[in-house]
């Protein structure tokens, strides 16, 4: 299961940092300045247990990996175009099934070993095996041979022991070139390569990954200052002398501080202990006064947040009921409560190619009268309606009650609220035991509208919050994936979005762009394509 960045569910503000980090500014050399450029970045999360981008898809781990590892390609923060980082070139064949990836020569890991095509192929083979239980196994599912390596196993049965250990679609051509053959055409594959789940692991680490949990051998611009990283201490990184790739950030030293409570991190910033941190949802009303001239709103209309219906519960089986609930919600006032958010009327993040402002149409318009009729048409609702909210976020209850009040008053349904930790709620939903609404959210991993649809609405989607399955949606996605023309692909993806919206398994609520705070000594990188990045901040003299 590929579940990138599910942390966005709770850490709305923090994810803006994660989304942004591939950007870089190579301009502005440090000149005569001799003082160490040190930046302290707060990560509003529990300390990560290990550093391994191949086995991590949470926002905190991705942020750390962005400093220690380098992706094959990245989105240029200035132009929004894809550009090579570790890759020398990424070339698809005519129908986007065979991709030839050539990496730059002369690059090496922190331990001095050269970085080769073999490292990529071996690492990907290793991660792909679901039996190893690595988080990003699903990322490679489009590569030929993945299905044979990871056959469907009925519950309670053991998978066969003689499964292949290598993907048939991966082939080393020479020392710096390898070829990826996909099972189906996928025109967006090049874009996906900026995800750090596809980072290579050093040969030594591949032999015994557990031994390197807290002393990873990276290949990025930074390395651990003291290795191994001790539990309970800040993660202190220094420039890696072995990194020869482009787009290294300016800072000489980067310190990541894990602060589980986002409000504590915020207050710590105000006390002057932190250079860069996100603004928690509860401070959205006050950050401009608290930190004048030290805040920046992300120009990217960020993650889309939804109300997820439990489709496995027969109370929510009727699309009319789902639409009735959606139409009982006044998105504009709700967005105002959230802060710098805008009402969402579709599944696609604004700013992506192919975004349409009101793709949801009437189903997302506030209209209590029609909502009531639809509810009756759909067979009504025998209450109480339950809303689950994350009680590890300070605003979870407030949002839940705001939605609940509107449903109660506009549809006349009794509403109850259940607070649980966000991981408990996800677990319940995964087991199809959740019997109420919940909040979920999504931010793309690579800038394509395909990534705003496939994970949530394809039958095989990794973040299919409502466990929605419609073969027509899958077909539209497959059609888009095989188009070599970008505009034609977008049309197909939009068709998939329309099909999903007609069933409304998730009700889009709002999209929020992150706000970050930065200290006087830095200026974060701000891009309308990649968002805000603290890691790639420039230092003010």
């Amino acid at each position, binding site marked *: 299961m590929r579940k990138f960045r599910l942390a966005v569910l709770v850490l709305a503000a923090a994810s803006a940092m994660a989304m942004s980090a591939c950007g870089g500014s190579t301009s502005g050399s440090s000149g005569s300045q001799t003082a160490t450029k040190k930046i302290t970045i707060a990560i509003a999360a529990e300390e990560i247990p290990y550093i391994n981008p191949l086995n991590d898809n949470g926002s905190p781990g991705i942020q750390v990996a962005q400093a220690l590892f380098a992706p094959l390609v990245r989105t240029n923060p200035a132009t929004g175009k894809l550009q090579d980082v570790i890759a020398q070139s990424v070339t698809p064949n005519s129908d986007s099934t065979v991709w030839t990836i050539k990496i730059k020569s002369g690059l090496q890991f922190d331990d001095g070993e050269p970085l080769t095509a073999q490292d990529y192929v071996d690492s990907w083979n290793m991660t792909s095996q679901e039996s190893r239980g690595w988080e990003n196994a699903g990322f490679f599912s489009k590569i030929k041979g993945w299905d044979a390596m990871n056959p469907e196993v009925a519950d309670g049965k053991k998978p066969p022991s003689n499964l292949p250990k290598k993907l048939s679609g991966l082939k080393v051509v020479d020392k710096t070139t390898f070829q990826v053959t996909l099972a189906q055409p996928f025109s967006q594959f090049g874009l996906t390569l900026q995800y750090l789940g596809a980072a290579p692991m050093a040969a030594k680490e591949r032999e015994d990954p557990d031994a390197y949990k807290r002393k990873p051998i990276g290949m990025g611009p930074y390395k651990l200052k003291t290795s191994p990283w001790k539990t309970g201490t800040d993660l202190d990184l220094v420039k890696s002398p072995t990194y020869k790739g482009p787009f290294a950030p300016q800072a000489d030293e980067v310190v990541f501080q894990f602060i589980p409570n986002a409000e504590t991190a915020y207050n710590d910033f105000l006390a002057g202990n932190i250079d860069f941190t996100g603004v928690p949802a*509860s401070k959205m*009303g*006050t950050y401009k006064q608290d930190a004048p001239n030290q805040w920046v709103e992300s120009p990217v209309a960020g993650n889309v947040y939804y109300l997820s219906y439990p489709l496995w519960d027969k109370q929510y089986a009727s699309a009319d009921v789902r639409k009735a609930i959606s139409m009982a919600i*006044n998105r504009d*006032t*709700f967005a*105002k*409560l959230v802060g710098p958010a805008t009402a969402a009327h579709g599944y696609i993040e604004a700013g992506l190619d192919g975004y349409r402002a009101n793709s949801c149409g009437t189903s997302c318009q506030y209209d209590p009268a029609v909502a009531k009729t639809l509810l009756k048409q759909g067979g009504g609702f025998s209450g109480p309606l339950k809303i689950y*909210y994350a*009680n590890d976020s*300070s*605003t979870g*209850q*407030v949002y*839940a*009650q*705001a939605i*609940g*009040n*509107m449903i*109660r*008053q506009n549809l006349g349904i009794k*509403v*109850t*609220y259940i*607070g649980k930790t966000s991981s408990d709620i996800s677990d319940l939903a995964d087991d199809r035991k959740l019997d109420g609404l919940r909040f979920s959210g999504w931010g793309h991993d690579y800038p394509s509208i395909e990534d705003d649809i496939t994970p949530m609405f394809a039958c095989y989607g990794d973040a299919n919050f409502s466990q929605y399955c419609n073969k027509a949606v899958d077909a539209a996605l497959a059609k888009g994936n095989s188009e070599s023309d970008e505009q034609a692909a977008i049309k197909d993806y939009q068709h998939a979005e329309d099909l999903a919206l007609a069933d409304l398994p998730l009700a889009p609520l709002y999209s929020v762009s992150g706000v970050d705070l930065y200290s006087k000594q830095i200026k974060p990188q701000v891009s309308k394509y990649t968002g805000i990045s603290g890691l790639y901040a420039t230092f003010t003299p």
Partner: protein
Amino acid sequence: MTQIAVAAEEVEIADLAEGRAPTTRELLISLLRKPAFDVCAVLLLLFFAMAAVPQIFTSVDPTVCDLGKSMHPASAGHPFGYDVQGCDYFSNVIYGARPSVLVSVVASFGMFLLAGVLGLLAGYFPGFVDALISRTADVLFALPGMVALIVILNAVPHRNIWIILGVILMIGWPGGMRLMRSTVFSVRNKEYVQAARAIGVPAWRILTRHVFPNAMAPLLAMTTLGVGGMVGLEAALTFLGVGLPPGTISWGSQFGIAASYREAPHLFVWPSIFISVMTISFMIIGDSIRDVLDPKLLK
């Protein structure tokens, strides 16, 4: 009125000279003669009325909310403004009195009974009964109170006001029990108790007729002083998310939400004024009761 008061005072002085415990009537009269007590008693009656029949204080339904008015300040007809959800805050604060009053009064009364009975038994039957009760109390004393409450309440899936009350009682009785036990110790060997025992009065009758009435005063004072703390405890638990379930209107939950929205100070001010006034009223009343019950202060 003055005549009665003067008469009562004479009776009181005469009685106290004999070293007799004052009667309930005399206690009440001396309480009512304290102006602070009177003011607080009136305030508490108001709060009780609020809890019992909030409708007479406000005609606005606290659950009618318009999110568009979220955190708006006071306006005509809405003296406290609106809360985060856009509900009328005045009616919410009024309706919020019920859980606070219920928790504080029922928990205190329950605590008085539980601690009183257990203390009575522990103090009057030394040996096995005393050991059982006192050692159980020691175990509970060893638990840090607030932490124990949070842990236990977190483990309860569907909390309601009675479960919270039960847990508060379960954790809270040892303090009162010890006080009661020690006063029973001083009473149980008094001549009138020995006399009763000598003529064969059964134990439960001695306890209810002779020991309890003469040993309860310190516990009563302690309990009334503690009622105010209970209001705060309910608010604190709800604030921490282990109290009343969300959706319940209570001062604690209003407080908890206000803490996250500093830009709207009225959300914070009103429930805190109500909590403070109610807590202080209970404390002053508790203080007054302790004063009139304490023979040392009377002389």
